[in-house]
């Protein structure tokens, strides 16, 4: 894909496929993170969800990005459960709604991500530093938009977004959780990286990998 050209459905599918593979690979690691401050299922949930997504998408790939993202969001909502199901589901649903039917440019992609993150925040009511996936997603969305605004290539913008997401995820380590299951632990939640922020960083890194050239 050259800069400014339309992002194809196939590319978005490839992004999702990469993310699904990462979720399968990182399942145990994510679950271990969730065992420390949650209930030990985040990796299992995400892996189950992304498997269901790829099955649906591979059975009949929707024609455009909005339709694709609706399929993805609904599959996650109906297969993941827990907090991550509705939150990731909303992320993709809002991403798709923002995409519109007329093809997607890098700027459009960035706006979609921002819309998705806004959807997550509206649903989960989490602020930055509540130690949730928002701590990876919001910096990522901001970084991609900023980079494109500064004239960076889509590849570079996504790389900066992925870096920001990973940094955001790492920055959850010292935080005391204020949302989700981890908040029950109070001070004991500090010292562990948030599992949802970690899976979110993987999502953005998958995008960076997909559109790397």
């Amino acid at each position, binding site marked *: 894909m050259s800069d400014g050209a339309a992002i194809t459905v196939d590319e978005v599918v490839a992004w999702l496929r990469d993310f699904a593979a990462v979720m399968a690979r990182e399942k145990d690691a994510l*679950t271990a993170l969730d*065992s420390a*401050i*949650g*209930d*030990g*299922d985040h990796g*299992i*949930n995400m892996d*189950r969800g992304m498997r269901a997504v790829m099955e649906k998408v591979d059975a009949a790939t929707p024609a455009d990005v909005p339709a694709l993202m609706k399929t993805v969001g609904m599959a996650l*909502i*109906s*297969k*993941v*459960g*827990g*907090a*991550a*199901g*509705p*939150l990731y589901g909303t992320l993709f649903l809002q991403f798709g709604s923002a995409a519109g039917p007329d093809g997607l440019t890098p700027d459009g992609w960035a706006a979609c991500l921002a819309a998705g993150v806004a959807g997550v925040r509206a*649903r*989960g009511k989490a602020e930055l530093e509540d130690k949730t996936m928002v701590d990876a997603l919001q910096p990522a969305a901001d970084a991609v938009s900023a980079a494109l605004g500064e004239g960076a290539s889509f590849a570079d913008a996504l790389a900066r977004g992925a870096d920001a997401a990973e940094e955001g995820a790492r920055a959850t380590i010292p935080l*005391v959780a*204020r*949302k*989700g*299951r981890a*908040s*029950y*632990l*109070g001070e*004991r939640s500090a010292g562990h990286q948030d599992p949802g922020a970690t899976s979110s960083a993987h999502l953005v890194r998958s995008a960076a990998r997909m559109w790397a050239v």
Partner: protein
Amino acid sequence: MKKLINDPADVVAESLRGFAAAHADLVRVNADPAYVVRADAPVKGKVGILSGGGSGHEPMHGGFVGRGMLDVACPGEVFTSPTPDQMLEATKAVDGGAGVLHIVKNYTGDILNFEMAADLAREEGIEIEAVITNDDVAVQDSLYTAGRRGVGVTVLAEKIVGAAAEEGQDLAAVAELCRRVNAEGRTMGMALTSCTVPAAGKPTFELGEQEMEIGIGIHGEPGRERLPLASAKEIVERLAGPVIDDLPFASGDRVLAFVNGMGGTPQIELYLVYNELAQLLEARGITIARNLVGSYITSLEMAGCSITLLRLDDELIRLWDAPVLTAGLRWGA
């Protein structure tokens, strides 16, 4: 991981099949989306009572489906809340025209999924009330947490509210009753061992031979603090003290005292705990008018217990005593 299972991915589905086969007189089980519904649903003109949550807490909720308690239960994956589409189908299966009450334990995942489900059901013209249980005093109810977890009171609420719906109370009344039961009940739990989520294959947390977790939830979450193992007497003081002080329960109150096993603790210990609790309450002038001792809201094979107190009045006692006919609770029928 030592469990009586086949593929860890199939635990919930296979267990539900067994449940369906064992209790065909009481319930029907829908496989996909998964729900356990009373055999005679929908009951025309009766408010439907739906509850749901992750699996691994059996007999809650599927074991409480039947006459006088739940109309339908939605089991999620182990410790993972069920999904909106599942709740929607379950809601439709029990809508007898008088609306459906969703009893939701306060966990972010449950809340989010139930919110979506209620929206979907309302779009289909079904009246929905959702009541959130949040009785776990181990968690501070503050801006800095997701609020208190819904634990033991959920079982009591399902029984009492189920009786009210059975006798024909309308949706608003049943929802109000459910909120009242939640407001009058408090719980705190502890663990001697962790549990192992089948798909994870190893214990959620590790506890030393001489350690216990106080203030746990029901999902193998670590608790508020880890303390040296103590006697049953001390443990009861550590659980019942905060429970009593929080409402607070006062001398002269009549309560339902509920000693709940977490799944791996045998009855001999639960009754020993009840003995301590009865003495402690008597010393505080609190009267146990009703009691429940057993493993009703569990965390897989976790060893440990929780103590729930619910302040009773004549109305709640009447509804508690009303007949109930489910796999997990049964009397008067």
